[in-house]
């Protein structure tokens, strides 16, 4: 093998990579926040006991979890525009990512809610909490605490998955990489740099979620899983 590695040309494009990484972060944060809201609502809907609601939520989750993100992104971007509803690539990407992560979050949150002990609910009822209060204080927050590690992993997977949005011309980190490699003809070096960038992003995200966890879950007792 007589290949000479040359990172200098690739590293000249550093500002571009930074821009791409920033967009990746933005995409991930927006999709995480909105996906978490949708997922939690969906998990509540699935446990609601109202047949049509739980069926609809179940259908949504199964449909999304059994089809690839790439196809979902294509459907949102090309599909919507073909039926006359033109959405910019950026919005299409966010919509697809939110729909996608919402389904996964829903399953995780449902598992968390299912793990709340029945005695807790009976106690809450005895304290005359209404249904909304029970959900917020007794089910949702402890459930979140319990599945927090799983949620963190899922959101990091989402951040990595956002690389797929480069396929509909969203200028995030992977799209920048594709552009730089076609400009510099240094494809392997480019992707090594970007791989390192993603690893740093994943690490930062893990750190961020850990800090958030310390901030939000102030009770330091051990639940089912370690933080």
């Amino acid at each position, binding site marked *: 093998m007589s290949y000479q590695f040359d990172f200098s040309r690739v590293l000249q494009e550093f500002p571009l990579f930074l821009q791409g990484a920033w967009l990746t972060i933005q995409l991930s944060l927006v999709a995480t926040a909105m996906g978490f809201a949708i997922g939690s609502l969906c998990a509540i809907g699935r446990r609601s006991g109202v047949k049509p609601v739980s069926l609809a939520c179940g259908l949504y989750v199964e449909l999304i979890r059994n089809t*690839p993100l790439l196809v979902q992104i294509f459907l949102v971007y090309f*599909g919507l525009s073909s039926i006359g509803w033109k959405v910019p690539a950026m919005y299409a990407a966010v919509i697809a990512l939110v729909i996608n992560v919402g389904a996964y979050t829903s399953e995780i949150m449902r598992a968390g809610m299912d793990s709340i002990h029945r005695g807790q609910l009976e106690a809450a009822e005895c304290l005359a909490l209404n249904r909304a209060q029970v959900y917020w204080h007794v089910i949702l927050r402890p459930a979140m605490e319990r599945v927090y590690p799983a949620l963190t992993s899922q959101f990091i997977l989402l951040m990595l998955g956002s690389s797929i949005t480069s396929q509909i011309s969203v200028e995030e980190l992977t799209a920048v990489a594709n552009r730089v490699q076609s400009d510099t003809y240094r494809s392997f070096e480019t992707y090594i740099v970007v791989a390192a960038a993603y690893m740093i992003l994943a690490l930062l995200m893990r750190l961020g979620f850990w800090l958030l966890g310390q901030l939000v879950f102030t009770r330091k007792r051990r639940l089912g899983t370690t933080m």
Partner: protein
Amino acid sequence: MQTSFNIHHLYFLLNGMAWTLALSLIAFIGGGIAGFAVALCRVSPVAAVRWSATAYVQLVQGIPLLILMFMTYFGLSIAGWTLSALVAAGIAMTIYVSAYLGEIWRGCIEAVARTQWEAAECLALSRTQRMRLVILPQALRIATPPTVGFMVQIVKNTSLASIVGFVELARAGQVVNNSIFQPFLVYIIVATFYFALCYPLSAWSTRLERRLQVGQPAPLFA
């Protein structure tokens, strides 16, 4: 001239689906073998082996599969091998699957009760014997549901091979769409095909999981 969706397009898509299955199989078998090695290294008594396996898993799990694909595709070609898209995608998928399955299986090995290890040790079994005769058979039972569940991920993620030019189901969908330009219809059909591949696996995994959960508290509101 534009044609509408016809039987030839459907045939082309089905052909793509066969390649999706083939790539999934390659990824599962290759990734399974490598993943097993990773899992064993992760629980190795030798710290250096354990650490390097951890580093490998962290490395692969921190990189998007898409970037892995690009790296194998371009990286192996500069090493002097001209690889077909299938081989490049197969290698990338194998690396990806090995890291995730390795981590899943490590969890399953560690989930086998501590007392089983101790009992095996008391019977003077060597480490290999302990693994082979006591731990792995029990870990296998725990590992089946998550492994089947991960197969769904494998099938779905083969769609990324389309980006390095391998004509599987997603790529076949793009090709058909480029010729008839009915993205909504085409991608719905493609999604349906993926669903048909993945849903049985998902359902199977859920059923296996339930079977393992006998004796555990029933979920609330059920």
